[in-house]
Every structure is written in C-alpha cells, then in structure tokens.
C-alpha cells in the first residue's frame, strides 16, 4: 500500500530491490526500513509475543518499543523499524526469543 502521489511530499525512492519474507520473494526500495517495506507489501504481523504467542506488528516505528523484532539474515532480535532493507535479505517472523548464538 504505497502512496503514489502526495499533495505535499515527493518520495525519492532508491533502487528497487528484492528480499524474501518467510521464503516469499518481495519488492522493496534501497534506503527504506525493513518494517516499512513489509508494510508496503501488506505484511502487518511481524512476529509473535514471547509467552502468549500473540501477533505482533510495529508500534512506535522509531526503535523504542521492541514490537517489531524479527530474525534477519539469521540474526535474531533485529529492530526492523530502524534497520535498512538490503538486496537479498532474508527476513523471517520470530517466534519467541530467537537464536542468538
């Protein structure tokens, strides 16, 4: 759900790149955050809560609340709302605490 035209803003997007989300190939733009790219692809559920496994999406979008943590390129607990998307990234929903070793 990207904004194509805006009355005040011009969105200067970087290069179009691809990444995978839970194995599915998706499009994004260089320079945007992982969470923004996912949201643009209508992905709202980014993970599950630790104990009750409730769906989690982002909340603050600025790196404060830890709601958006996902496993990216094998690394757990990545703050996707403040981490930039890169070509070929593998992004996965994180169940529980993720593997940190």
């Amino acid at each position: 759900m990207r904004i194509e035209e805006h009355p005040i803003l011009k969105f200067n997007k970087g290069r179009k790149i691809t990444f995978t989300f839970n194995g599915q190939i998706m499009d994004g733009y260089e320079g945007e955050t992982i969470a923004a790219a996912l949201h643009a692809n209508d992905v709202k559920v980014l993970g599950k809560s630790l104990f009750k496994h409730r769906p989690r999406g982002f909340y603050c979008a600025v790196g404060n609340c830890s709601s958006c943590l996902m496993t990216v390129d094998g690394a757990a607990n990545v703050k996707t709302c403040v981490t930039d998307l890169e070509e070929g990234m593998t992004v996965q929903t994180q169940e529980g605490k993720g593997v940190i070793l």
Partner: protein
Amino acid sequence: MFEKTGIPNAEMVMEKFPSIERINQGAVAVVECYKEIPCNPCQTACKFDAIKVGEDINSIPEVCFENCTGCAVCLSKCPGLAIMIVDGSKCSDKAEVKIPYEFLPLPAEGQIVKGLNREGRHITDVKVLKVLNPKSFDRTPIVTIEVDRKFLYEIRNIKAEV
C-alpha cells in the same frame, strides 16, 4: 459547543464576515480564527496593513476590510488554513470564494465539484473557476469556486471526486 465540535455557529461566522456592501465591492478576506493561539504570520504576510494581530501574538487577528484587496497571500500563509476570500462583485446571483485545498486530486478549472459546509456536509454543487498552485504558495493551492449567493455564509470546502 465550539470547543466540543470544532464547528463555529452562525453567529460566530457572521462576526468574521464584512458587510454585504463591502463583499459586493470586491474580494475581501474572512479570517476564521476564533481562539487565542500564539500565531501571527497573517499579519506578517499582508502588504496592505489589512490584518492586525499586534504585540501579543496570541491576539485574535482583526481585519481592516477597507485596506484588504483580497490578494489571498494571507490565505496561503495561515498555518490553520482559517482564511477564505469572498467576492460578491462579479455577479448578482453568484459569489466567488477562494479556499485553500491541500489534497489530491486537485480539481480542474471548469469542473463541477461538491460544495461542503463547515460540517463537511454537501450543501450544493459549485463550479471551479481557477486553481492556482505557484511555488510561492509552498504547496497550498488556492481554488476559486463560484457558488450560489444564498450559500455564501455556509460554503467552506469542496470535495473533488476521483
């Protein structure tokens, strides 16, 4: 009530309008700023000394209708988009109204669009006469519409359908 709804009542609106004689002489500003907030760019923008806020920038702006030429610079500068320009000099049964319109799609000149009142209700259809969006307005386009005179005190906004 105003503090609950954000909609000024008819009495409040009428106080901001000049006399019908003045409206029929030519374009003039109606500044719908009803509450004291720290803000004075309308005074800074006016080249004709027609708007006064004064030393205390919280004061409600007062319009000197004799000095006002209806140039609409204040309209594009008002951060609250609270100003409109009315002109009853062009036609006996219609009035021209200029409003700020910061949405897409911008209507086209000649297009008939929905005219809305202060509650956002569709009260009549209006014709778009002009759409100005120069760089100096900093992305606040000004749309001039032609409306039936009887809606002069109610018309406040438009809706341009996709």
